C-alpha cells in the first residue's frame, strides 16, 4: 500500500496573534509556524499502517515561502517517511480550495492507495482540505476519522467516523480514498532536532508545481480578536488568594463541604 500524507503549517498559537493594518488578515511580520496538529496525527497513522503492513509513505507539503516547509518535510523524513515533496510556490499560506487544487495536481503524478490528512486546521476558513482534494480527484472521503484498518487485500479500509457523545460510525471505504484524521492511535513519534537539521542539509526534498485553483470565493470583510475575559471577573493574587476567593464563590452557592459548614 502506498500512503500519501498532506501537510501544512499554521501560525503557532503559543505566540500572540495580531490583526493587520487593513483589519482583514493576520499580521504576519512576527509570525512563527508549526505543523498543523491534525496533519501530524495523519502522518503518524500512515507510518503505523505502513510499519504494520509494508508499503511507502510520501509526504506532500505546500511550498509556502513564509514558513519552514523544508524543516516540516525533514521532520517527516526523520519520523520515517520514504519520500517528501514540496508542492507549489506560495508567498503565504493559501486558502483551502487553492491548497486542495495544488495537492490534487501533484497527486496526478504520484501513486497512492490512501491519502491521509488532518481533519481540519486552525485556519481553514473555506473548508477542510481533505474532502476538497477528494472531490477534485473524484475520490470518496471520510472526515473525523479515529480508527483505520486495512482490509480486503488492500482494496478496502475500515474506518471510524466520530460523532457527538462518543458515538462512532463504522464504514468500509473503497480505495483509493481520502481520510481526514482526527487523532492517531499513538502520540506522534519524536523527531530529534539534530537529525531534522542534518536531513535538511542532506536529504532530497522534491518539488512539484501542483494544480491551480480558483480560490475560496470568500471575501473577508473584517478580522477581529474576540475580547477574552470581558465576561469573566478575574481573580488576581497568589494561589492562596485565588483559592480563598474561589472557595467563597462556591460557598455562596452552597458548594464545598469545608465552607458550607
Amino acid at each position: 500500500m502506498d500512503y500519501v500524507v498532506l501537510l501544512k503549517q499554521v501560525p503557532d498559537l503559543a505566540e500572540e496573534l495580531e490583526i493587520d493594518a487593513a483589519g482583514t488578515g493576520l499580521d504576519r511580520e512576527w509570525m512563527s509556524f508549526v505543523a498543523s496538529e491534525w496533519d501530524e496525527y495523519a502522518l503518524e497513522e500512515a507510518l503505523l499502517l505502513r510499519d504494520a503492513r509494508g508499503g511507502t509513505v510520501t509526504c506532500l507539503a505546500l511550498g509556502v515561502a513564509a514558513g519552514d516547509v523544508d524543516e516540516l518535510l525533514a521532520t517527516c523524513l526523520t519520523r520515517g517517511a520514504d519520500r517528501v515533496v514540496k508542492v507549489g510556490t506560495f508567498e503565504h499560506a493559501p486558502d483551502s480550495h487553492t491548497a486542495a487544487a495544488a495537492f490534487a495536481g501533484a497527486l496526478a503524478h504520484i501513486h497512492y492507495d490512501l491519502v491521509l490528512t488532518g481533519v481540519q486546521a486552525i485556519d481553514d476558513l473555506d473548508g477542510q482540505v481533505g474532502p476538497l482534494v477528494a472531490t477534485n480527484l473524484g475520490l470518496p472521503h471520510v472526515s473525523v476519522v479515529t480508527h483505520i484498518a486495512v482490509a480486503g487485500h488492500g482494496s478496502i479500509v475500515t474506518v471510524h467516523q466520530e460523532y457527538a457523545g462518543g458515538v462512532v460510525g463504522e464504514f468500509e471505504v473503497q480505495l483509493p480514498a481520502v481520510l481526514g484524521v482526527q487523532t492517531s492511535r499513538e502520540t506522534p513519534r519524536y523527531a530529534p532536532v539534530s537529525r531534522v537539521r542534518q536531513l535538511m542539509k542532506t536529504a532530497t526534498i522534491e518539488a512539484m508545481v501542483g494544480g491551480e485553483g480558483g480560490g475560496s470565493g470568500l471575501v473577508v470583510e473584517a478580522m477581529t480578536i474576540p475580547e477574552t475575559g470581558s465576561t469573566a471577573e478575574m481573580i488576581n493574587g497568589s494561589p492562596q488568594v485565588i483559592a480563598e476567593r474561589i472557595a467563597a464563590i462556591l460557598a455562596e452557592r452552597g458548594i464545598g463541604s469545608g465552607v458550607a459548614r
Partner: protein
Amino acid sequence: MSGDVFVIAEHRDGAIIDTTYELLGRAKALAGASGGEAVAVLLGSAVAGLAGSLGAAARVIVVDGPGLASFSPSAYQAALVPLVRERQPALVLVANSGSGMDVAAGLSAALDLPLAAYAIDLTVDANGPLVTCQLYAGKILAKVRFTGGRGIVTVVAGSFPADAGAAGGSPPVETVVPAATDDRIRFVDLLRPEAGDVDITRETVLVSVGRGIGEQENLELVEALAAVLGGAVSSSRPIADAGWLPRTRQVGKSGLKVKPKVYLALGISGAPEHLEGMRNAELIIAINSDARAPIFSVAHFGAVADLLDVVPALTARLGG
C-alpha cells in the same frame, strides 16, 4: 437562483439531531431577507415520517433511496450535488459535525460554491449573507461574504437557539429520488461508548482538566478536589486521547454536553470544540496560565495561574 435557505437535516437512530433545529430556526429567520423560504432537506430511506419533525420549515425535500438508508459521505454527496445544482438555493446550512464536514466541503468542491466554515453567526443584509467564522482555535473571528452572493455555511453547534427550529407545523413535503448514487463508502455499524462509572451529564459539580495538567500523575490533585466538592472529574479532548481518563469523561463536540451547577475549567484553553460542550454551565470558573485563553470568554470567574498551584490550595481550603 432562488432565495431559499436549505438546511441539510442530520438524523441518527430515527431522530433529528438538535443542531438541525438550530440551523432551521436560523434559516427561518433569514429566509425573508434572503427572498425565499427555509427548506429542510432530509436524506434517507423510508424517512417520510421524520419529515413531520421538521415542522418549522416552509417546505421539506425528502431525498429517498435505498442507498441512503444509512449516512455515507459518498452517497450523500452523490444525491445532494444534482439537487443543489438544480435548485440553486442562496444558502446551504450544514452542521459542523463529523458528517457535516464531509457533506459541506464535498458540495463546495463539486459545485464550485464557496464554503464558510466554523460559523457562529449568520445574517443577511442588503449586501447578501454575512458569516462570522471562528478561526485559530477561537482566537480570531472573521466576517466573510460570498463573492457570488451564494454559498454553503457549516455552523458550530450551539450558535443558535434550537427552539425556533423545533416548532411544530405541517409543511408540504416533496419526495425526490436521488439523481445519482455512490456506494464506495458503505455504512457498517453505529458504535456507542460503553457506559462509564460516572455520568458527567448528571453531576452538579465538574472539575474538568485539560492539557495544563501536564502529567498523568497530577490527576490525583483534581480527583482530590472533586472529592471535597462532591463532584466528578471530566476533561477536554487531549486528556481522553492520551487515555488518562475514559472517553465517557470527555466534554465537548465529540464528547458530552454538560450543564452542571459549577464547572471548574482547569488548564483548558477553551477551543471552540470544548466550549460547545460546556458553555451553558450555570457557573464557570477557569484557571489557565495563558491570559488570552478563550476559556475566559465564557467563564464567569477566571484566574491566570498554574492549576498545579491553585488546586492543592483550594482542596486544602475546602478541608480536603
